[in-house]
């Protein structure tokens, strides 16, 4: 099955009782049993429900995993993943992670005795050195948020495999349409479904997809025990969003490439970070491990923080808001918004300056977006 076909059909079957082509929204808490101990596959919607299950099968098919579990938020997906660990375990992660992931590691899981090392993995040979006896997981984001640094998934997965531990990739920025980490050797993929997959900024959700059947069962057990599974309405909206994933990603990508080039040529712009630009230090790796560059761009103006803020507040078509990956174009100030909980010294080290602007390029007409950015910069 080709990608665009898979996106529309995978995981879904006509409703067995009516033939409805669209998966029904099962807005029910519980299921009547045929007799004591006999159910029809569902007993209570916290454990799972047919709408979430259809989405899970779709996600597993798109990422090339054996199974998936969908959660109430991207952070809930990462939380469930962390819940598979125990006191004394160690996680090796890349240093440029989404602020919420860092917060979860630092403020929640260190208190129950889980250890974390966050290192720069641009050179993948450091991963092998960073793996300790008690390391259970290599956790990466590529491209990273917001510095759009790339990590060689194949190399990271190999280092993890050699140590017999899991390689986890947050694939939120690329989606399975552009990048399939499981095909490159990773064991687990996580997503914030809120972003490109649902794509309309109208829900909060997350997913974990894996090639390891036992691990998938563990995650399902955790979703049931901790009770952070995705509800039926949001499961349906995500399925509905995924139907146009291919079309949207192509448009995000082509718009972003035009905008990145426009910014690169702009006399008032000091720095543009976009993996699709030849000037990006890992452009070749982006070409190798993904089929597109995505819709995220970060840049800095020559006028520094003052000019950056003025620009963010002067846009008209672009929206100043948190989140990304929706049909609407958004500008974000990572320093005060998505990464505000990251300590000052780490921000400095990573390059998250006060003047850095992050763009989530939507699917509007690229000319309108460029015209609006141009007037805001000037």
């Amino acid at each position, binding site marked *: 099955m080709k990608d665009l076909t898979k996106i529309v059909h995978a995981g879904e079957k006509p409703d067995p009782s009516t033939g409805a082509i669209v998966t029904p929204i099962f807005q029910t*808490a519980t299921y009547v049993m045929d007799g*004591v101990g006999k159910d029809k596959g569902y007993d209570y919607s*916290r454990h799972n429900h047919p709408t979430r299950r259809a989405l899970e099968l779709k996600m597993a098919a798109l990422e090339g995993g054996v199974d998936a579990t969908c959660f109430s938020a991207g952070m*809930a997906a990462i*939380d469930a993943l962390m819940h598979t660990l125990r*006191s004394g375990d160690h996680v090796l992660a890349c240093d440029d992670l989404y602020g*919420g992931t860092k917060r979860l590691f630092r403020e929640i899981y260190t208190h129950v005795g889980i250890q974390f090392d966050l290192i720069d993995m641009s050179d993948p040979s450091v991963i092998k050195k960073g793996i300790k006896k008690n390391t259970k997981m290599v956790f990466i984001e590529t491209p990273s948020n917001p510095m759009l640094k790339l990590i060689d998934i194949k190399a990271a997965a190999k280092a993890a495999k050699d140590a017999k531990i899991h390689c986890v990739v947050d694939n939120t920025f690329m989606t399975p349409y552009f990048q399939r980490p499981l095909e490159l050797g990773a064991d687990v993929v996580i997503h914030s479904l809120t972003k490109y997959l649902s794509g309309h900024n109208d829900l*909060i959700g997350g997913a974990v997809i894996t090639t390891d059947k036992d691990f998938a069962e563990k995650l399902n057990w955790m979703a049931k025990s901790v*009770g952070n599974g995705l509800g039926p309405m949001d499961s349906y909206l995500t399925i509905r969003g995924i139907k146009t994933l291919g079309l949207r990603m192509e448009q995000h990508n082509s718009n972003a490439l035009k905008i990145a080039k426009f910014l690169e040529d702009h006399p008032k712009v000091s720095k543009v970070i976009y993996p699709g630009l030849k000037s990006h230090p890992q452009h070749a790796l982006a070409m190798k491990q993904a089929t597109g560059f995505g819709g995220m761009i970060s840049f800095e103006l020559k006028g520094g923080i003052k000019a950056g803020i003025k620009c963010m507040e002067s846009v008209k078509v672009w929206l*100043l808001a948190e989140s990304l990956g929706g049909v609407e174009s958004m500008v974000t100030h990572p320093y005060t918004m998505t990464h505000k909980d990251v300590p000052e010294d780490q921000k400095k080290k990573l390059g998250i300056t006060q003047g850095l602007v992050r763009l989530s390029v939507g699917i509007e007409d690229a000319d309108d977006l460029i015209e609006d950015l141009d007037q805001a910069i000037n």
Partner: protein
Amino acid sequence: MAKDGQKKERSDDEGSSKDEPERKAPGFETMAIHAGESDEEHYRAVVPPIYHTSTYKLEEVGKFHGYDYSRSGNPTRAMLERKLACLEEAKYGLAFSSGMAAVNAVVALLESGAHVVSEENVYGGTHRLLSKVYPKYKIDLTWVDATDLSKVEKAIKKETKLLWIETPTNPLLKILDIEALAKIAHANKVLLVVDNTFSSPYLQRPIEHGADIVVHSTTKYIGGHSDFIGGAVVTSNDQAYLDMAYYQNAAGAVPSPNDCYMAARSLKTLALRMRQHCFNAKKIAEFLDGDSRVKKVYYPGLPDHPGHELAKKQMDDFGGIITFEVNGDHETTKAFVSELHYFALAVSLGAVESLIAHPASMTHASLTGGEKQKIGIKDNMVRISVGIEEVEDLIQDLDIALTKTIGTRK
């Protein structure tokens, strides 16, 4: 059921000017309908909108209108949280994606090395979380029969941070003394957590009796229609609230705005539904109690229930859940359940539809045989969640099923 005279301190219920005659504090039914809804204009719509949005547009960098991202906060969820806090007589409410996510947010207050004392007869899911998830983080646990206060006192150690109870308990409907347990907890600097799912705030408000944190599966009586999964935590403890709110955002087990709206909508009929649940359950408990085909009936509304007097003291009525033992073995019990017409065999409870569950194989399936035996969960035991149908139909349904499996009523 007079609930007047309860002074509310929440800003949404105030707002009268100097010239207006003073109003008495609103009663439960009034709060259930109006509390928490009036903070924003919404084009003056009587019912607040469902905010199906993930994010919010900022006015300028660093300046937003109270909401920046829906995992962190959503107006529909905030409305439900305010309403629940009001109804539980608490300062703060937090809504979660399930009752278990709410339970988890409370347990997540603990760090490695902490200790929990819990009533041994808690919902199977809570039992699983405390005994199978948290021990690997070196969070220690002691089960006790909390009807015996001296056992609770003995179980508390230097490291104890939480005392966890449900009352009435699930499925044995034991009644635990909230006030006495709160005193023991507070004397030891321990927080008392009460799962108030079986009573709903209409029948019991544990914070009035000294509890620090109340948790709910809003899927049950609060939601009341078996149509969503949700949970909530309410508290008046500032620090616990801040920590759990932080965790709610950090770990992201949040409910969808759609489900928050449905929970708030359901609260408007909570009082009416609870009155009917209690009325029906009392009639059914009396019918079962005098029936030789039934071995034992557990319902706190029956005068010979060991917790009857305490229930009268701390609850406004006895609720809609009845547990009973069929006078027969496991096979007879299974046959009885399959003969019922109105009582659907399904997990969950607290809804308009009557449901029946077999705790040993369903709600408490995660317990070992030994654990079930110790607590008193038996194979011939069924738990009914009495709905709001016509009670005569429900009694007839039970009678016919008992007749078909055991014989006519004597």
